[in-house]
């Protein structure tokens, strides 16, 4: 039997336009849509900040960088944006669990 060759795995270029899983459980559609958009926006901002920080760190490693503060503040922004996404996810999961715990 001839096996098809395995395609090479492309390097992960970073998240772009990640869509959230359907916000299940919540009752009203507008509330679920709003929270989902917020999560998508913060995820995009986090990946964008991470991309900026990666580019600046590569420039610093190759010796092209003239401004040290730009690297440090880009890394701080990336960290803060990621923490924001995690906090949003935690709150969304918590409220989902609260709703599911309701006795009917």
């Amino acid at each position, binding site marked *: 039997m001839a096996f098809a060759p395995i395609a090479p795995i492309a390097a992960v270029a970073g998240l772009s336009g990640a869509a959230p899983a359907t916000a299940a459980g919540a009752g009203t559609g507008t509330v679920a849509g709003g929270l989902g958009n917020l999560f998508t926006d913060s995820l995009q901002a986090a990946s964008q900040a991470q991309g900026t920080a990666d580019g600046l760190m590569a420039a610093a490693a190759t010796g092209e960088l003239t401004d040290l503060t730009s690297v440090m*503040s880009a890394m701080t922004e990336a960290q*803060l944006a990621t923490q*924001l996404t995690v906090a949003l996810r*935690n*709150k969304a999961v918590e409220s989902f669990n609260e709703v599911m715990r309701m006795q009917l």
Partner: protein
Amino acid sequence: MSLFSAIGISQSGIGTYKAWIDATADNVANANDARRTSEEAFRARRLIVTSAAPGEGVRVVGVSFGDAEGRLVHDPNNPLADDRGMVRMPDLNMSDEMTSLIIAQRAYQANVTAFERARDGYLRELEIGK
């Protein structure tokens, strides 16, 4: 990201005061440059700084150079001396430069402190309701 705007504002301050320290260090390093009387003296560098868009921090808009006349000093043993033994030295005041260095360093540290306090504040803010 406008959510964490203090990061960008403090970054602009840190960059500006770093440029000021660089300019002052350049002036101090060149404070004893002797030139021929036919050339202009080493000119001290001063930064022109203004606020960026309101609430956006600070930026350097230009550079102004100091006096080109300098001081004429009698130094006949200098290889650059003219037929009267004069050379042209820069018109720099070392105490002015030292004061600028101290101000720039303290302002730099103040901006770094603002950056760190803002970052700690944001991190704490993300834990509201935990």
